[in-house]
């Protein structure tokens, strides 16, 4: 305490030089870089998409926004219905083979940065339904950032998963892992914009997929 007072007196007198001065300033001024601030802002103001498929939908997104398990205290109160305005999709429920292209399209319509939470056993890994009608895990056709197990998971479990996702968002703003898996650049833009048509590779891949179903 006494040494700090002496150092302050030196600074005011203009006696601190060079490294001493730098250290003095650093100890007193909160320095951050822009990415960290951006990550903190993103994590605490997520706009989840109101997307409920099956049983898990009753627990989230309906039950976690109610008064007992309040999602609003984490900043995610504004649930948006349009994927263009949302940045997190909670896959709450089993993804059937008829619904999978619709989910993928919704995910593509969301703009970067976006995150996906696979809630429950069915969207993480098809749960108990290892049959012809359910896609065996949503990560077979879209990148998933966090998995919350349970059938259905308690709302507290979903909130814990949400907290972990927030820490992930704050910690890795560049989402490099997406780039490694070629999971970028799949957004669908409005007509007339710079990316309103899918890229040639994506268009080719869509056509090949459709042809193989028809065949």
């Amino acid at each position, binding site marked *: 305490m006494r040494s700090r007072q002496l150092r302050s007196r030196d600074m005011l007198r203009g006696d601190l030089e060079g490294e001493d001065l730098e250290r003095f300033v650093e100890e007193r001024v909160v320095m951050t870089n822009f990415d960290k601030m951006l990550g903190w802002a993103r994590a605490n103001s997520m706009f989840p998409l109101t997307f409920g498929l099956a049983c898990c939908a009753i627990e989230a997104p309906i039950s976690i926004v109610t*008064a007992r398990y309040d999602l609003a205290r984490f900043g995610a109160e504004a649930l948006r*219905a349009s994927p263009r305005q949302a940045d997190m999709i909670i896959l709450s429920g089993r993804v*059937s083979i008829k619904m999978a292209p619709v989910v993928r399209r919704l995910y593509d319509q969301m703009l970067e940065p976006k995150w996906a939470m696979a809630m429950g056993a069915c969207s993480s890994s098809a749960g108990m339904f290892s049959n012809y009608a359910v896609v065996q895990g949503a990560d077979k056709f879209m990148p998933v950032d966090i998995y919350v197990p349970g059938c259905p998971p308690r709302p507290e479990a979903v909130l814990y998963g949400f907290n972990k996702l927030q820490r992930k968002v704050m910690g890795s703003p560049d989402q490099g892992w997406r780039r490694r898996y070629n999971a970028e650049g799949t957004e669908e833009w409005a007509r007339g914009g710079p990316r309103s048509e899918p890229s040639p590779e994506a268009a080719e891949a869509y056509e090949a997929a459709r042809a193989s179903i028809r065949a």
Partner: protein
Amino acid sequence: MASPETQTPETTSEVMTINIGPHHPATHGVLRLVVDLEGELVRDLKPVVGYVHTGIEKSCESQSYWKVIPFVERMDYVSYFFQMEAFCGAVERLVDLEIPPRARYLRTIFLELNRIHSHLVWLGTTGLDLGAISMLWYCFRERDKILDLFEMATGQRMHTRYFQVGGVIEDIPLGFEAKLREFIADMPVRIGQYEALLDRNEIFLSRTKGVGIVSRERLLELGVTGPLLRAAGEPWDLRKAFDYLAYPELDFKVPVGTVGDNYDRYRVRLAEMVESVRIIEQSLDGLPEGPYIADDRKYVLPPRSELSTSMESLIHHFKLVTEGYRVESGEVYYSIEGPRGELGCFVLADGSSKPARVHYRDPSFVNLQAFRDMSVDSYVADMIASLGMLDPILGGVDR
């Protein structure tokens, strides 16, 4: 404001076919509607379903009978106890097993609690659709109390696997009865609060009165049952028509509407919640002592305390858990009154330990056929209100 009748053909535009869903803030689940719109009038409507089809009926054919129970309760995911009861009741009729009186009363209590739960979820989400957003928070406050009761008795909030063939899996714990009595004392006050919020709300009344009327005969032709049919004036309730569980010994009324519009459907369901509270109270008062599951060790697991002392119990336990019991060939169709209508379960047994066909006659699937009649030649907003009052649960529709 121009009503549907005063719009002449010259003033309307051409018919557009619009796709609503499967992801849409107002659909109860993933329902896709292909609507032909002329201005704001709905001229034709086609529901496209199947977006949450899970192949449960096929999966059931490869599970032993008691393993089917967790599968079927995930069909209509708001009224899970009803699906369990339909399946367990059907298998009990197949093997001719009688459940003890305490189990019948316990099943009745849980079924009626689930009915209140289903109607609360309906009221909350329909209020949200119509714009009465605060209903969601009030209804889900009560819903959380019911889920606390479920968790106390079974360990799980939803999809509890509580009913087994022969009775219920476990007796209710100490303190359950006290907490349940507290709940049923409180519930009529809460229902009064919901009525106070909505009953004289002018916007709610003008959106629901006189909207979505389908005649009683047409509803019967379409196979519609449940609160929709009762709101149109037909007093048909399977709890009174057929004797099952503890209902013959209980005294309750069946609310019936007069006009058959959306407002009647809302009032019928609210009145049903009040009646359910009465049923629970009577069942709790008359809850008999005794075993909570049948004694027949060929179909029912022996209690764990016996496993260390009796060799025979151990053998029964082993056989039931590994292969399961075999059911002779036969078929049974058993139906109960679910919160949306007649929930029927058809089980075909072929002599092995796995059912050969499990089919559910789901009320939402059949009631959805009435949706077209309810919304043709009315506004789009009325169509959304009718969809809320129709109360489809897409898990049941798609199975």
